């Protein structure tokens, strides 16, 4: 039954992307959903992770720095580290100021990194990007479907791990401080919580997840180029978070699935309906559709599909069970 096999193969392919996106959206949710940090440069931090991991693990690239050929696990850890360092530097500059400044500064990061990816040929391979990024276990598992399923297991495991860790984090005293700062910084400061430090921590951890997501993407596709990390990626990820419900980790994952499904579906429909010479133009309509979706959600259902839980502390749960409705 080739059809069923094709469907299965397509399904795993779809789910691998969805889980990688969900991982990145979880990072974004920590920043925006719980801490109120507006990061417009998500694509930039994802790119940092993807390029770092590629440079650490790929076989030696001629005429170019990197291609160290180290184990993939090291690449992923390195990806998280460099994204975290980038976030730390930007955070120091922008997190002390009003939230708009972080938005503008992170936008600048994404634009600048895009320029670096395009032009620093000695590091990033320029417009052609980096190739031959090793796929984990590819030498053991040769069947492509089996490999895709294996990779899906890896990404799902990492997603599950991050979900559990984040759920614990946001329910811990640390997570409650984040929300307190988001809601009323002055009040939180007057209780002795240094808002800047907490913000910086949340920003760095969120960006590390984005870097990991980038690395997972790079090792799945095996090839990265600057055009994989355009502002549209940031926009898709934001739409996922808003549609799913910011401030809710399950919402973030659900949003990633729903929006990615809508995106691939609308892409397929447009490819079917539009003659090939108009494909490039039709692709712009896809962005318009997703943009309208985001704006409609913002206008009509600002809390998203799954809204934020109003009570997260297990100590408070029993007492406020009846007043929990909002």
């Amino acid at each position: 039954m080739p059809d069923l096999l094709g469907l299965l193969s397509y399904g795993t392919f779809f789910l691998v992307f969805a889980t990688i996106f969900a991982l990145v959206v979880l990072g974004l949710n920590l920043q925006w959903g719980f801490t109120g940090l507006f990061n417009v440069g998500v694509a930039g931090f994802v790119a940092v992770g993807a390029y770092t991991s590629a440079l650490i693990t790929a076989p030696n690239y001629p005429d170019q720095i990197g291609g160290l050929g180290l184990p993939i696990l090291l690449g992923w850890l390195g990806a998280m580290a460099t994204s975290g360092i980038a976030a730390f530097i930007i955070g120091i500059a922008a997190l002390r100021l009003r939230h708009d400044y972080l938005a503008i500064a992170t936008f600048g990061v994404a634009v600048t990194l895009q320029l670096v990816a395009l032009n620093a040929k000695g590091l990033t391979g320029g417009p052609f990007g980096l190739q031959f990024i090793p796929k984990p276990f590819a030498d053991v598992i040769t069947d492509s479907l089996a490999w895709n399923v294996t990779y899906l297991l890896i990404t799902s495991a990492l997603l599950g791990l991050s979900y559990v860790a984040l759920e614990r984090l946001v329910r811990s005293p640390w997570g409650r401080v984040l929300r307190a700062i988001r809601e009323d910084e002055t009040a939180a400061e007057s209780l002795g919580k240094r808002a800047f430090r907490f913000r910086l921590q949340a920003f760095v951890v969120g960006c590390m997840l984005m870097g990991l997501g980038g690395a997972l993407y790079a090792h799945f596709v095996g090839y990265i180029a600057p055009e994989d990390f355009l502002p549209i990626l940031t926009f898709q990820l934001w739409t996922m978070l808003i549609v799913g419900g910011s401030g809710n980790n399950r919402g973030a994952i659900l949003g990633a699935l729903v929006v990615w499904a809508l995106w691939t579906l609308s892409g397929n429909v447009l490819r079917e309906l539009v003659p090939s010479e108009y494909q490039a133009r039709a692709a712009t309509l896809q962005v318009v559709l997703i943009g309208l979706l985001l704006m409609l959600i913002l206008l009509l259902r600002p809390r998203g599909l799954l809204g934020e839980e109003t009570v997260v502390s297990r100590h408070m749960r029993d007492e406020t069970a009846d007043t929990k409705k909002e």
Partner: protein
Amino acid sequence: MLQLVADGFIIGSVIALGAIGVTLVYSILRFANFAHGELLTWGAYLAWTALIGIVAVWGPAEPLGPFSFGWPLLVALAISAVATAALALLVDRLLFRQLRQHGNAITLIMASFGAALVLRNLLQFIYGSIPEYYSREIQVAIRLIPRDVLGGLRITPDQLFVLGLTAVSVVSLHGFLTRTTLGKAMRATSNNPQLARVTGIDVDQIIRATWIIGAVLATVAGVFSGLTVQLRPQLGLDLLLPLFAAAILGGIGSVYGAVVGGLIVGLAESLSVPLVGAEYRAATAFAVLIAILLIRPTGLFGERT
């Protein structure tokens, strides 16, 4: 050297005109508008459409004096300014006004980010992505300063026109903000919206005026960019970072700060070309931005943080 300075002033003019819109929206509507770059793009493309329409009806006109364009471009600029202002008001009505009533500044920023992508892709859908020009005539640059003085200076009449009209726009805006009732009301709203409302200022009218001024200046900036470089759907996106850098450098809310900031960012971009290469010129705006955030986040002329 002189040539780089002159180039910097010309890019700086475009940035300054755009940054005025960013800073006005920021200080009166209180959010960083990521869609402002798209007003530049739409302004430039709508002027191009109007130009084609005019030429189709009245036939091509002789260029005015030494310039590469004739009267049709000036008329097209005026038509486009009206249309772009209408577009800005429409976006505000459909999107930003709804969110203002029950949302916070961050929702507005995100909505503007979405609006930017929708506007840019819609434009690309309509016009395609091939670069366009207002005029294909090749202009001979005039040598103002001979080559042996600091490398000399050559400038095209169009570039002089850009500098001149920028100066005229800024001076008239200054007159508007300091002499007219509406202008004074705008400054009052920017300083303290609650107090302005209490004194009977019609805030909705102020917001409309803000969008109209921002859009008209964006159209002028967009057309200048199209005139001195070319028309591309990414025109506004590429200018967005310099616009923000200029607005923050000048101090949010300060119109004169935005002009000075725009010229400084333009100069920095131009002067950085021999150092880092033309491909990284946009990153210069980012460097300026980070530097100002670290050293003096209120900007050169700003009071508020």
